[in-house]
């Protein structure tokens, strides 16, 4: 099936041959990878987290050097020793984390490093603005040259990044998970722009995990697994299932098997929660719901409709203006996080790097961080290292964390394995309620499947789970019942997710429809308000 034979070498703008990258610590990120780009194509680079896609592209952009292997650009063999060399050969990169200076204007960011002068020493601002405007019009990428970057929306920041690469003469654009930060509309807009660039003869590398996007926009795709290339395919010739199998090497169960929930007593009881943020916007408006033992209650909704604020309130990262929340009858609002945890609440936070782990600490230190005070891990004033080692090893094994040892730094792991460390800690300390906020965002298919299965398993063992997810598939598959949030309110409650379709969900998520107060009130199972 791989189509390498069908094309001669002449038509490639980039050829990477037998690229191997072994880091100083002995970890092999790429092993004998072949990668090529045809002029004017959109080429997807796919793979799980840690499969080596970013490393491969960093080498193409000159940020890292291959241990062995050759890189040809337009048929010329090159040593890409730095990004400036790559830029000089027409390679540009749009980083996932924007390389922009927030307090400078769009035009100033555009010309940074190649500033137009006037009268010898001064910046020619007019020229910078004019240049920005010209490129913006030429490529149909609309930006406001004089706005400060900190004041413009994410979608426009990305356009600035693309323009920055184009103005430096890039003919090949590497885009690292460009849709991860965009809204649905912005993504659609980006796709139009990318197709437009393709028409003008530009070549685009599109790094992504999102199968639907790849099917929609790319011509060919290269799949990577564990540092190796699994082949190059024409996008129209492969199915999503095949891609998924090539990426993880087995069929991922895309629909999850689970028994019917048998809900017990109410664990989390939230009533009339209200929150007005510092910009005087009502982010939460009269939120009431119950989560019972043995069920997964999903919260669906387009991001930014109050989900983040709700979780912040429940774990005391913020204080609501009104309302109550209790776990087994004890109020949790305003309690220190340690006290909330003592009540049996576990949190899988949305931002795992900030709230989920201490990235400089070891796996072991991270997994025992919530239980280090327990008697079984202490001997007098000192730690009982034997017991701690045993606990860490047990969790690493049970949660299949791929690592060199328990003393490896968590920050060095791939995204999926970092999240496994987080859930290993959160799921294993006998919680009665799990708050799972975007538990599988940005992680690979294998880890995603593992965490979803674990959530179902735990809920069936009698734990209450509140699942907040922007991933519609996830929230519909995992949840037993489901609420939809829109504009800070609960727009709908579905007691049973069976029979729900994307269309129905979409109407509530986008605010086209809203259930009556009576219907929504059914999510408060004790019926007293």
């Amino acid at each position, binding site marked *: 099936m791989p189509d390498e034979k069908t094309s001669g070498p002449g038509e490639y703008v980039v050829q990477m041959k037998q690229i191997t990258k072994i880091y100083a610590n002995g970890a092999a990120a790429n092993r004998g990878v072949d990668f090529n780009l045809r002029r004017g194509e959109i080429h997807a680079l796919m793979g799980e987290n840690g499969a080596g896609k970013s490393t491969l592209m960093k080498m193409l952009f000159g940020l890292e050097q291959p241990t062995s292997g050759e890189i040809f650009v337009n048929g010329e063999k090159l040593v890409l020793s730095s990004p400036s060399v790559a830029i000089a050969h027409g390679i540009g990169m749009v980083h996932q984390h924007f390389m922009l200076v927030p307090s*400078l204007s769009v035009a100033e960011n555009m010309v*940074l490093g190649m500033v137009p002068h006037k009268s010898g020493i001064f910046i020619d601002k007019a020229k910078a603005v004019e240049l920005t405007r010209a490129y913006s019009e030429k490529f149909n990428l609309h930006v406001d040259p004089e706005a400060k970057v900190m004041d413009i929306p994410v979608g426009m920041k990305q356009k600035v990044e693309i323009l920055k690469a184009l103005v430096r003469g890039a003919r090949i654009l590497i885009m690292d998970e460009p849709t991860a930060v965009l809204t649905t509309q912005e993504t659609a807009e980006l796709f139009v722009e990318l197709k437009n660039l393709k028409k003008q003869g530009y070549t685009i590398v599109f790094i992504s995990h999102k199968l639907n996007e790849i099917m929609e926009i790319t011509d060919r795709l290269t799949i990577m697994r564990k540092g190796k290339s699994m082949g190059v395919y024409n996008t129209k010739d492969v199915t999503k299932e095949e891609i998924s199998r090539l990426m993880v090497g087995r069929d991922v169960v895309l629909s999850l098997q689970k028994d019917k929930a048998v809900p017990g007593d109410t664990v989390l009881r939230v009533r009339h929660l209200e929150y007005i943020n510092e910009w005087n916007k009502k982010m939460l408006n009269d939120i009431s719901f119950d989560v019972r033992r043995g069920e997964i209650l999903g919260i669906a909704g387009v991001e930014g409709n109050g989900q983040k604020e709700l979780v912040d309130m429940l774990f005391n990262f913020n204080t609501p203006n009104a309302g109550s929340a209790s776990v087994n009858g004890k109020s949790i609002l305003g309690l220190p996080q340690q006290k909330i945890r003592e009540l049996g609440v576990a949190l899988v936070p949305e931002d795992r790097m900030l709230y989920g782990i201490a990235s400089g600490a070891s796996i072991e230190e991270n997994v025992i961080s919530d239980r280090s005070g327990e008697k079984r891990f202490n001997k007098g004033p000192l730690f009982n290292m034997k017991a701690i080692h045993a606990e860490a090893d047990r969790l690493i094994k049970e949660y299949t964390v791929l690592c060199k040892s328990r003393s490896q730094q968590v920050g060095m792991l791939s995204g999926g394995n970092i999240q496994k460390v987080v859930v290993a800690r959160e799921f294993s300390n006998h919680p009665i309620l799990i708050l799972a906020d975007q538990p599988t965002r940005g992680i690979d298919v294998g880890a995603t499947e593992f965490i979803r299965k674990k959530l179902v398993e735990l809920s069936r063992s009698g734990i209450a789970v509140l699942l907040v997810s922007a991933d519609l598939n996830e929230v519909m598959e995992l949840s037993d019942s489901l609420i939809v949030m829109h504009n800070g309110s609960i727009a709908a409650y579905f007691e049973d997710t069976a029979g729900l379709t994307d269309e129905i969900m979409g109407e509530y998520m986008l605010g086209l429809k809203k259930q009556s107060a009576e219907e929504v009130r059914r999510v408060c199972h004790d019926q007293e308000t």
Partner: protein
Amino acid sequence: MLNFLKMLATPEFFYSIIRISAPILFATLAAVVVEKAGFANIGLEGLMMFAALSGSLVSYYAGSWFWGFLAALATGVIMSLVMGFFAFKLKTDIILVGIAVNMMGSGGTLFLCKVITNLTEGKAMASTTGLITRSLCIPDITIPLLNQIPFLGRVLSGHNLLTYLAFLFCLLTSLMLYKTPLGLNIRAVGENPDAAASVGVSVMKIRYTAMAFSGLMSGFGGAFMSMAYAQGWSLDMVSGRGFIALAAQAMGGGECLGGMLSALVFGFAQALGIKFSAIGLDSNLASPIPYAVTILGLVIFALVRSSRIRKQHSAAALAKGKAKAES
């Protein structure tokens, strides 16, 4: 009380505010630029001490204030580049480098002064005040016409050459930061070094440049202290101006103009302290005045800034709500 206010409303008092503010302003400009470049140089105090010593000694040996003045500038720049080497190349914490320079600036300058004067004069001197005469100081400048204006002429004319340069540099530094490619690069490196590096700006070069600029300004400040403010160098003569400048930078919102106004506020406080001791107030009561004003200034600054942010937020929310209602 009224009598006292009358004493303050003299041209001499305003003249002294400007004079006292000049060295603080030099150091404040140094602090502003390094802060824009994304780090802090807390060693300004020590740099000024060294510059003050080398300026006074070289002017004495060369018999010309001009060579002393250049020596002070060179001392500031070279020492700041050494600081940069320790901080950027050898990765020492830049705050620790600054502390080291400040400590050397106190004890080390006295040591150097004694060693050098022992070699050349035959006796170890604890200060160079005996060596520096009026003609070895940086000259004062009378501005024609301006000095004819009543009151204002006596406030603004007749200042030291460096005092005028301080205020001129305030303008030039602001232009440099906002109107030149160098300034753009400094601000970009300070805010997002990765972004600057990704488009080929050399982050190291910019950091060393900002560091050297801070050394140059400290050189001016030091030269002012030993060759204009006082005749000759003496122990700890900079007396906290390098630290006050850090406060002035923060109080001025990190900008040149704001820094200048803050430097003037501190200059006012010091002039007031001097005036108080002149009318017989116990010097133990008068000398803390500048520092009390520093703290007060920082508190006011923090309050103003937080209320401004709150206002901006509510304004943004209003604008957002309005835009929504219209769409």
